[in-house]
């Protein structure tokens, strides 16, 4: 099922009789509008359109009996392949403990997602250890501690000295995990703006100490045009390995998914689909493509 604008584009092409370069351009313009309506970043849409154009302007498509159908299929296939073709697993490789670090803007769902990942890996037989280096947000430590407690999983509690020096806390947590055979170590970080140079630098230092298997960017699915800016800076300054998109239980079309993948080149591995700790799904690129298009 397609958005009104894409249906209009199809109707337009069907009504044109002969398909030419000119009316294909017009149809692609309608597609551009449909993508903008789905909150895909304006510049990402333009790049995407350029990628589609060549395939759409192919002789076979233009001569086909159902050019509109063909174009829509090209769009859907291209979108799905951009969003990631195969299911991507978490990186739990190497000498234990494996380490995950969750990063992103304020309120995107990092702390909750830490819990969801812990529950997921513990169902796979792992023994995760949670630690939070968010010493700023009121009750951030409590929040992750309660989540761990509700899941019957281990939480590394920071001492007063560690609260003053989170980088030391990280080293101690790794050591503790190693000694007590916990893996993965799941590190929750404070939300921060990509334009806050000091906090981005702090995050880089933490990553260097932690040497994580996964640096997971936790992004809110209802983000609009700004999705590219923040994801891009996190990728440039910290380096990401994967993405988790949250709040997909809402009705946002989720164009941020395409924007974030395009600008970081990193795969979306999971989708948050609710507040409960079992509400994490493997990311399905084809379903996301349909959602963006419809």
């Amino acid at each position, binding site marked *: 099922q397609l958005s009104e604008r894409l249906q209009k584009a199809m109707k337009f092409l069907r009504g044109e009789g002969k398909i030419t370069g000119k009316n294909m351009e017009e149809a692609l313009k309608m597609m551009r*509008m449909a993508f*903008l*309506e*789905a*909150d895909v970043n*304006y510049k990402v849409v333009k790049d995407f359109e350029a990628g589609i154009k060549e395939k759409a302007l192919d002789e076979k498509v233009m001569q086909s009996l159902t050019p509109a159908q063909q174009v829509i299929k090209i769009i859907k296939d291209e979108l799905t392949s951009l969003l990631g073709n195969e299911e991507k697993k978490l990186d739990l490789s190497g000498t234990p403990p494996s380490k995950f670090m969750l990063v992103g*803007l*304020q*309120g*995107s*769902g990092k*702390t909750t997602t830490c819990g969801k990942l812990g529950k997921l890996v513990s169902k796979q037989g792992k023994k995760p250890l949670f630690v939070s280096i968010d010493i*700023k*947000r*009121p*009750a*951030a430590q*409590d*929040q*992750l*501690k*309660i*989540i761990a407690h*509700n899941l019957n999983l281990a939480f590394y509690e920071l001492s007063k000295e560690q609260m003053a020096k989170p980088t030391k806390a990280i080293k101690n947590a790794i050591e503790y995990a190693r000694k007590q055979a916990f893996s993965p170590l799941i590190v929750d970080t404070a939300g921060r*703006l*990509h*334009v806050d140079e000091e906090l981005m630098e702090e995050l880089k230092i933490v990553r260097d100490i932690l040497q994580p298997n996964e640096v997971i960017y936790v992004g*809110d699915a*209802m*983000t*609009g*045009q*700004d*999705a590219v*800016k*923040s994801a891009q800076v996190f990728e440039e300054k910290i380096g990401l390995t994967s993405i988790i998109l949250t*709040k997909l*239980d*809402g*009705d*946002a*079309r989720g*164009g*941020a998914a395409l924007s974030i993948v395009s600008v970081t080149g990193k795969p979306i591995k999971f989708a948050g689909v609710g*507040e409960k700790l079992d509400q994490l799904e493997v990311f399905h690129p084809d379903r996301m493509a349909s959602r963006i298009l419809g």
Partner: protein
Amino acid sequence: LLYSGKDREKILDDLTETLLLSDVGIETTEKIIQSIRVHSEKTALFPEIKKILEKELVKTLSQYSSEVKPNTTPSVFMFVGVNGGGKTTTLAKLAHLFKKNGTEILLVAADTFRAAAQEQLVIWGKRLNCPVIKGQHGADPASVVYDAVQSFKARKADILLIDTGGRIHTNVNLMNELEKIRMIISREIENAPHEIYLVLDASIGRNALSQAREFLKFSGLTGIILTKLDGTAKGGSVISIVDELKLPIKYIGVGEREEDLFPFSAQEFVKALLS
């Protein structure tokens, strides 16, 4: 210097791109640009056209009063919105703002669901020296609000600030819960809640309008507070909300500290939007 129709279209295209990149949304942008096309001289250059656009946007955003109570006490405020938008932090900021005038402010931690939600507000209450009324974790939020309202009346306090749990606007049960909370308040205190603020993250795209519509329908809304404008998001999604739902933008949040809240200025907002 020959001026051609092509230059004018290029100017309008550039402004279209600016608006789209600021999350104004495609339909609202088309409407605005069409109006600019009609209201600008055929020979106008970029600075003049941009000025017309500015004036038009400021006019749209200033239409409904941004003036805030409490100029009458007792005053009851409710904070609603989807998950993670900044409700709890914004409530604390407003408590800080109102406290300057020596009023007695009670905070209500009615998010009994999310881990450490009540603890979060309790810490803010200690910092701001405002009592916090909370309930058992997992209790019915409506009962926490009911108790808080009784306490508020008994103490003859001036301002009651009610924090609610984040919720997805398409979750009917949670939206009904919000409606129930509002009904309890209005039944117990005349004309209350005096203000129901939708706390909206400035980086949200088109979904902001659906959110506003649903919260308006279930809990009612008297205004919007746009948060996280200290980031790079422009918050353009509020324009369609103001235009369609006739809601004023009361404040903007520009940081995580209690002082990072300012009354909304349409001029400043539009200037930043178009920069």
